[in-house]
C-alpha cells in the first residue's frame, strides 16, 4: 500500500482544488516559510480522522476551512481525498486502489467517504488498523514533534511506546 495522490480543496491555504501526486518512494516537499508545506501533513492527519482542532494548530475545527486572504473570500467548505494504490488488505482484491475522503462545511457538518460512498469515521480508522497508520501515528512526525518527544516525561514516553509498537 502506498499513497499515490492527495486532492485538496478549501483546506487551510489550499483554497483552489489541487492534486499533488507522489509517484515515487522518496518525495521531498520544499518551499519558503509559510507557503503551506505543513498544511499538507495536517490534511493527511485530518482525513484519517483527527478530531482535535488543537492538534491541527487551530482553535476550532472550522479553522481548517480556508478563511480568506488579501484577494480571496473565505471558502464554504474544506475537502481532502487520499488515493492509495497497491492496497493488499483482506477485504479488498489484491493490488486495488482505495480513496478516502473527508468534507467539512461551515455549519460544522463533517462527512467521511470511502471510494466515493459515504461512511462513518470508524470505517476509516478500521481500514488502517494494524497498518501503523492513523491520525496520531508515529509514522507522521509533525514539525517540532521530534524535540517534544525527547523532552517527554517517562510516563508520556511509555504511552508513545505502547501506542506505536
Amino acid at each position, binding site marked *: 500500500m502506498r*499513497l499515490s495522490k492527495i486532492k485538496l480543496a478549501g483546506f487551510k491555504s489550499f483554497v483552489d482544488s489541487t492534486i499533488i501526486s507522489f509517484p515515487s518512494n522518496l518525495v521531498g516537499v*520544499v518551499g519558503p516559510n509559510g507557503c*503551506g*508545506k505543513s498544511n499538507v501533513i495536517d490534511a493527511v492527519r485530518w482525513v484519517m480522522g483527527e478530531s482535535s482542532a488543537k492538534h491541527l494548530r487551530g482553535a476550532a475545527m472550522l479553522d481548517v476551512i480556508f478563511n480568506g*486572504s488579501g484577494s480571496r473570500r473565505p471558502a464554504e467548505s474544506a475537502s481532502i481525498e487520499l488515493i492509495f494504490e497497491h492496497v493488499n488488505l483482506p477485504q479488498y482484491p489484491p493490488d486495488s486502489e482505495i480513496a478516502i475522503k473527508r468534507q467539512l462545511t461551515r455549519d460544522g457538518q463533517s462527512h467521511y467517504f470511502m471510494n466515493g460512498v459515504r461512511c462513518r469515521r470508524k470505517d476509516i480508522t478500521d481500514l488502517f488498523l494494524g497498518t501503523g*497508520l492513523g491520525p496520531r501515528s508515529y509514522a507522521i512526525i509533525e514539525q517540532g514533534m521530534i524535540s517534544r518527544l*525527547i523532552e517527554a516525561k517517562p510516563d508520556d514516553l511509555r504511552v508513545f*511506546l505502547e501506542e506505536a509498537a
Partner: protein
Amino acid sequence: TKVRFQETLDSVNGSLVAMFPRLFGGGQAHLELVGDDLLKSGVAIIARPPGKRNSTIHLLSGGEKALTAIALVFAIFELNPAPFCMLDEVDAPLDDTNVGRFSALVKSMSGNVQFIFISHNKITMEIAEQLVGVTMQEAGVSRPVAVDLDKAVGMLN
C-alpha cells in the same frame, strides 16, 4: 499486559541498538524502565554518542537529542513498518554530517517504505526522486509547482 509491555520494550531495544549507531556513526542507546513496576513505570532513553559517557537525554546537545529521537522513531518503524512515513523538518537541528547519515538511512529504508519529507536542507533534498514545490505566488494561496533540485535550492532564496 505486563508480559506484552516487556516484549515491546525488548523488541524496541533490539531495534534501537542497531539503529542508533547507524545515525551517530557509533555509540549506543537503549530504553530503561524508570522504577520496577512493569505495569505503571515510565520509560527513559539512555544514550551514549560515540566517545562520550552514558548520559540521560537531558545533558545531550540539541542536535544529539533530535538524532536520538529519530533513532527511536525509526527503530519502532523497523518493528512495525507503516506503508508511508511523513517527516516535517526533522533535520533542522542537525549539522551536515548528521544530515548526511540521516538522509542515507532514509534512502536505504525507502525500499519498502514510502517517505514524504519536508526539508530546507539541500543535502536532504538531494536524495528525493521527486520534488514537490509549494508556493504562494498569490499571497495567502498555496499551489504546488514542479521543481528540480536547482530550482528548489533557488526557491529557498
